[in-house]
């Protein structure tokens, strides 16, 4: 079964329990009204509302060299470019699993490197996860067990609006099924870095909130010091941090030792890039140090535009994460070479896939550009082939992974599918490459 409980409201249809595939948090209680092509969000966070809303404009047609073309013509032109290219770069990869499967099929047939536009944070985290590992928890575990949440960096609600509502609800009433089932209803949340936003303070009212305020460039040092304190070192006298942060971290270490299930969270995508991997490592280290006597886990935030799904699919198909070159029967994983920006330096074709939002394609002038993209995408340079595609969860169904890598969610189409899905567009290209989908 899937979402889409609907009721008629005049000419508009109300659709409840819509699943959202945009930021990675995977909220599935969104409400919209749909009338013909028009989608109007009724209950959604600001980002989801903006990305779900649709007007009555008829879908644009594909274009080849700027001129309108049929899907078949555009697919044939795209295939011709792919056949001629020797070093194709697939970027964006903002697609549901169905679209990604077909894109990876193209990469296998035509040869290409693959990377996702939101993989920066993922790779900072993989620096720890793939090399050393960690102990993590999924959203529902945090929601029900976490009695002490430590947040590194900026208030994550800026990127994941409903994060605190989802993972740190305040129990209303006693008994029943209401979360948290295993944590006190007043829990402790500590920000290390920026302060809580006013909105977050409101959501978290009822919990005990504290802040260790630091400039962004000191967050990684604070995370390392916290791990040191948990390792038993005296950090009270260390004065590399502003103000009394050292002493506050030492106190936090004591609270963590006494906590029953503490959780460390960070958004690697918004931390200073050089520091994100260090924060992931220190947070994981802190969990390792706590685990002999109590329970603790990390909750790395991320997952925009199904980057988690792109990562998972690459692992099960090729045995490697993203930033891998596929083709001629092999897969070569070299993150330094195949991150989009690096790959484009040596690339001779760019295929940009972005079905969730009108993100611009990366700058590229050394060869043809194929865009399988949101119809509202504006281009600095007209792509050689542009196939406007529908958005999973708006125009057609699909599957996306939630940020915790465990839960895979079914998206539902909300309005009549007039645009091809990215999977359909990619299948049409594949057929021109001599491979049925």
């Amino acid at each position, binding site marked *: 079964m899937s979402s889409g409980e609907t009721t008629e409201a005049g000419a508009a249809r109300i659709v409840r329990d819509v699943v959202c595939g945009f930021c990675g948090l995977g909220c599935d209680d969104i409400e919209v009204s749909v009338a013909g092509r028009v989608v109007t969000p009724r209950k959604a966070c600001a980002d989801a509302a903006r990305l779900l809303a649709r007007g009555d404009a008829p879908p644009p047609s594909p274009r080849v060299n700027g001129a309108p073309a049929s899907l078949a013509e555009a697919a044939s032109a795209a295939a011709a470019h792919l056949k001629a290219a020797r070093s194709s770069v697939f970027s964006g990869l903002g697609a549901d699993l169905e679209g990604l499967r077909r894109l990876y099929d193209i990469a296998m047939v035509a040869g290409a490197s693959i990377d996702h536009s939101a993989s920066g944070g993922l790779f900072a985290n993989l620096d720890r996860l793939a*090399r050393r590992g960690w*102990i993590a928890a999924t959203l*529902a575990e945090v929601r029900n067990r976490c009695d002490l949440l430590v947040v590194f960096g900026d208030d994550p609600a800026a990127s994941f609006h409903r994060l605190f509502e989802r993972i740190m609800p305040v129990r209303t009433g006693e008994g029943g099924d*209401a979360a948290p089932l*295993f944590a006190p209803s007043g829990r402790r949340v500590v920000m290390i870095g920026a302060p809580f936003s006013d909105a977050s303070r409101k959501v978290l009212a009822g919990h005990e909130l504290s802040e260790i305020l630091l400039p962004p460039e000191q967050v990684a040092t604070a995370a390392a010091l916290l791990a040191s304190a948990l390792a038993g070192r005296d950090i009270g006298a260390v004065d590399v941090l502003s103000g009394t942060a050292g002493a506050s971290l030492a106190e936090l270490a004591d609270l963590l030792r006494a906590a029953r299930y503490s959780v460390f969270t960070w958004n690697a995508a918004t931390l200073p890039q050089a520091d994100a991997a260090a924060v992931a490592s220190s947070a994981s280290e802190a969990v390792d140090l706590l685990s002999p006597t*109590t329970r603790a*886990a990390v909750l790395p935030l991320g997952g925009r535009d199904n980057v988690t799904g792109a990562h998972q699919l690459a692992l099960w*198909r090729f045995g490697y994460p993203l930033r891998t070159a596929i083709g001629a029967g092999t897969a070569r994983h070299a993150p330094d070479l195949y991150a989009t920006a690096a790959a484009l330096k040596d690339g001779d074709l760019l295929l940009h896939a972005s079905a969730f939002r009108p993100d611009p394609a990366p700058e590229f002038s050394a060869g043809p550009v194929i865009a399988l993209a949101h119809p509202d995408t504006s281009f600095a340079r007209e792509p050689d082939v542009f196939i406007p595609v529908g958005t999973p969860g708006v125009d057609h169904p699909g599957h996306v992974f939630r940020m915790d890598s*465990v839960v*895979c969610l079914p998206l539902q189409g909300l309005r009549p599918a007039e645009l091809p899905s990215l999977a359909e567009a990619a299948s049409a290209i594949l057929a021109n490459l001599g491979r049925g989908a």
Partner: protein
Amino acid sequence: MRKRVTGGRVFDPANGIIDQVRDVVLEDGRIIADPGPGGSEEVVNASGCIVLAGGIDLHSHIAGGKVNLGRLLMNEDRALFPEPFGDFCGCGGGRAAPTTHATGCRYSQMGYTAVFEPAVVGANARHAHLEMADIPNIDTGGFLVLGNDDFLLRLIAMGEGQQAINDYVAWMLKATQSCAIKIVNPGGINAFKFNGRNLDLDEAGPFYELTPRRILNTLQRAVTELGVPHPIHLHGCNLGIPGNVKTTLATMGATEGFPLHLTHIQFHSYGTEGDRHFSSGAAEIAEAVNAMPHISVDVGQIMFGQTVTASADLMSQYRNHSIADPKKWIGMDIEMDAACGVVPFNYRDTSFVNALQWAIGLELFLLIEDPWRVYLTTDHPNGGPFTSYPHLIRLLMDKPFRDHHLRQIHKAARSHTRLESISREYTLEEIAVVTRAAPARTLGLKDRGHLGPGARADVVLYEDQPDREAMFAHPRIVMKDGEVVVVNGEIVALTEGRTYAVHPPSDPLMDKRLERWFDEAVGLKSSHYQIADGEIRGGQGPEIVELKP
């Protein structure tokens, strides 16, 4: 097109046919009664071959989140074992945690046509199914992990009746499109979330104060009353702990008459005798299995070399993480359902413990008398990669070969095993039972594991050779649903598999109850947790296994 497989020695123990030269006739994906000569048919020459049904592995971790975490940790293994070039290359590879395409091809190349993922965590079931759909040439199914899920433990702790439990189990099986229930360390994974570090069979766990015995019995009753063909598939308490043989024997005695399958029993057959306080409990376990017809086991043989262990049993994996090799590991508490722990291991024949584990597995295979109640597994990849099955088969069939390998292992381990004194060699008939007929029977797959009329036309021709490892590694021909997919051990075609599930009915009131649970406790809509039939294999839907009356 009708196919006639002719001139081969047929081993079809489910139909009482042992080593008879006879024809097997295939049509429209099924085996049919021999209509006699005439009509147009393609003749497949099986002379010099033995003819078996397609192999069935009922316990192999091939898909889902923990396997993907294994792939992430095993990048060197992946690089060492790329898929071979050619028309059927999937750009993947790996041996300990192979990619989906490589998994299907390697199984198919050994003559296997069905493989079951034995640890699907409910919250991750959709992922597991998407991955299984990407595995060519084999049919699949998943066993749902229950017994540590908070909803169930609450039901039991609140004293709800068996009917409510049954409704919940039925609901979960259908929601996750699974075909059996697996219990991993009953109550133990949940206890670890409350910082419990051990949980023995009759010890009450934290919070719910339930014993593993009670959880086990409750779920045994549920699957029996629902008519799920496969009994509870149990990964018991105290995995890997010296002395756990006592717990395992107690567990076998705790079944209240219900059938029980104990999985990877090798890891649960350890004593504490000798100067190293680690000894084989295989004889006691085998004796108990021999005496209890309601017990079946799979072995979980360990094979020397690099692998990765992937288990829902985070309590045990946390205990083991310090011996990770290479030194990295991943743990995860999962969504009020279960957990997972992924720890790379390198089993060495020069290690006393590993060598004795190897011997214990073989002792179990050889001392358990009834081949219908012991299935051939390495608990892939936990005991070793499934690609080692041909080697394992030779160890079972060839006493001099076994003794040769026994002489290579750690000296002290040799003196701790009675393996050398066991003269039994598996026969071809017994191999056909432990890799085909018996797993099909316990899973309730009436049209698999045999070559009688109506069976799926999964037929394998192995050239009879004295080197049983070479023989089982490279079948002359493998047919899947009647189509030739492997010739002389090489892939010649790719086909799509199917997914098995059971759909026992549940009271609609359980829908309401779970709606509230998912809304309030989990924070996800129950409607989005449930996997629709149309989501299985891109719209193909599941193949429903018939319930027992």
